[in-house]
């Protein structure tokens, strides 16, 4: 008995010791791989393909960071997390960064003590219903049974939306997107609600996507972005500027196809600074000078990442909308590389 107590306490202590934050960059280098938290499977954002290789829009962010830090975009351990486990995984040090369409909110940033390093997708919460229900507006959903993923902001938005419109609903709490899909298709709920991008991605995997409609109402702002632990600012900077590098690359016309050529030096000093042929931005981050070039050449710029995974030519078919460059009327705006 005494022995088991002792072993138990040692085991717990060992777990707790893992939470001590060290220099994440050194840890990642020593490990030779980046531990990146992603969803348990949302096609287009993060899902394993037929060969078990993770791919998607959020996966691209992980790969870009791995390429920038380690020079190898495949040196990533993808850790699938659910809405409920993701924050614990990040806070405990199990993962180095989380790229899991996570909404940037005040309390997550301040109270849960995380650091959001930017926004890679501007989203909002929507509703999907089967077409045969004949519902054309979210205001007609009084009394409906709604599937939601627990531990998300959508859960709170949903409660606010229904009570502020004086409607009632029956929540069906669900752990992962795959379970939600199964419950929704079985008719155990009338409505599935999550971020509009998630709805589009889920609908694209249905046998008959046209039998389901996404209602026009968007009931919340959901700025989705990668996040890291509070306190390790150097690591936060690396993730933030890797994302900015992808966005800036699109604005500057740097693509995965021409990055090698442009890295040799161009007329545009900003491209030169970004790709490392002028100045030493990489050194300031503690990385090699070709960090951004590595990231861009492995996953492409933001636009390529978007079009390749969730854009209009993919089954998911999302338009750029708010996620266009500021020069095209969108919200993407990278601070200058200087």
């Amino acid at each position, binding site marked *: 008995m*005494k022995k088991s*107590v*002792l072993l138990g*306490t*040692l085991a*717990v*202590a060992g777990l*707790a*010791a893992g*939470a*001590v*934050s060290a220099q994440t960059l050194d840890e990642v280098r020593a490990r030779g791989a980046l531990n990146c938290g992603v969803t348990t499977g949302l096609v287009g954002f993060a899902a394993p393909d037929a060969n078990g290789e993770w791919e998607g829009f959020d996966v691209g962010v992980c790969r870009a960071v791995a390429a920038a830090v380690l020079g190898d975009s495949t040196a990533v351990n993808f850790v699938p997390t659910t*809405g*409920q486990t993701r*924050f*614990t995984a990040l*806070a405990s040090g199990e993962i180095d960064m989380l790229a899991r369409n996570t909404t940037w909110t005040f*309390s997550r940033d301040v*109270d*849960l*003590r995380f650091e959001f390093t930017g926004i890679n997708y501007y989203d909002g919460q929507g509703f999907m219903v089967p077409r045969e*229900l004949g519902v054309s507006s979210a205001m007609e*959903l*009084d*009394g*409906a*049974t709604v599937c939601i993923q*627990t*531990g998300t902001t959508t*859960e*709170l938005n*949903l*409660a*606010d939306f*229904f*009570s*502020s419109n*004086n*409607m*009632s*609903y*029956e*929540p*069906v*709490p*669900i*752990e992962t997107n795959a379970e939600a899909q199964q*419950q929704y298709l*079985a*008719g*155990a*709920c*009338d409505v599935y609600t999550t971020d509009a991008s998630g709805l589009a991605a889920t609908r694209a995997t249905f046998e008959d996507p046209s039998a389901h409609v996404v209602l026009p109402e968007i009931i919340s702002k959901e700025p989705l972005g990668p996040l890291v632990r*509070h*306190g390790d600012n150097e690591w936060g900077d690396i993730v933030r500027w890797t994302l900015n590098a992808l966005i800036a690359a699109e604005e500057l016309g740097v693509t995965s196809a021409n990055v090698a050529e442009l890295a040799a030096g161009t007329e545009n000093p900003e491209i030169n600074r970004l790709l490392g042929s002028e100045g030493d931005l990489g050194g300031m981050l503690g990385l090699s000078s070709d960090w951004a070039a590595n990231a861009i050449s492995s996953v492409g710029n933001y636009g390529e990442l978007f079009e390749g995974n969730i854009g209009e030519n993919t089954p998911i078919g999302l338009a750029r909308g708010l996620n266009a460059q500021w020069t095209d009327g969108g919200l993407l705006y990278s601070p200058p590389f200087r």
Partner: protein
Amino acid sequence: MTIQVVAFALILAAIWFLGRNIVHNLEELGKDFNFAFLNSRAGYDINQRLIEYSNDSTHGRAALVGILNTLLVAFLGCILATILGVIAGVLRLSKNWIVGRLMTVYVEGFRNIPLLLWIILIFAVMTEATPQPRDFRGEDAEASMILGDSVAVTNRGIYVPNVVFTRSLGGNEMTEAADGVEAAIIPSAVAMDWLLVLVLLVGGVLASKAIGRWATKTQEATGIRPPATLWMQIGVILGPFVLVMIALGATLDLPELRGFNFSGGIHMRNSLIALWFALSLYTGAFIAEIVRAGILAVSRGQTEAAFALGLRPNRTMNLVILPQAMRVIIPPLISQYLNLTKNSSLAIAVGYMDVRSTLGGITINQTGRELEGMLLLGLFYLVTSLVISGAMNIYNNSVKLKER
């Protein structure tokens, strides 16, 4: 002695190290340790709630709703598991080959497959094999209600008629909830009515027993049993009950398809039913083995002696074997009840909102108070288990061999 002292010192050192580690790590993360989050607004809705709750309630209230849901499924599960276990345990000893083998299949099948699989399997069957509420609509509907249009079996749960009191003691009839949440009968208002009914029923049973004793006494004294004793016994139970039901204006509230869902009646959610059945069937298999062991532990001589006295087999079982077997059965039965209660935390697999899902899931996730939440959760299961085993120990003392 020396070894004990050293071991004790080591344990103290480990505890000290642990405590310091927690404090240090929390400091490093910039988190403090307090339970104030229990008083802040929860902001999320819970589908099954036995007490009043809305998204404006506090996290503490949400935890309480979860606790009650856990206790509900544990209570229902323990009862059904005991019934199943005793039946299966006795039947497994049956001389009838088919009955005995069927029970063996049940016991081995449920005992040797993980509980989580059973929960998911039962839930999946209930979700996939039953019709959606909208299949009940229209002239030539694909599905129809059963038992004279009073019960609806859907893939969202089973809707059964509910007894409502139109002249409730709580005063308010069928309160429309103000904001957002479903219009519902406020549980606390009807609780008084049900309490009254329950008191009358218990009183009726006691009175009927007293009548029985009086009748037996009269019979022993005079040789004549007072006429119509049985009718008096039934009357004393049913009479006040019927009168009170009429006085309170009890009516049946039938489920009815309205909008997206059935409304009215009691909604037994699939998540509750699946969890309840899976827990009961699984634990019932263990209880069956405990019961069988208890019966086999009673010496064969007891049965033979009872037969020699001319008792029939079923009376032998009820009067001679089971009372003695109880002494062997009760202690391991306690741990099965504890297992069932703790296993109910698998509820998340089917989205049943137990305390693990509310306090230990959503609340922790929204507030970031993992340590506090998990400590509270552990404390709840600890206290519940201690209470169950305490109560069962009292019962055990009452049936165990009296040593004089």
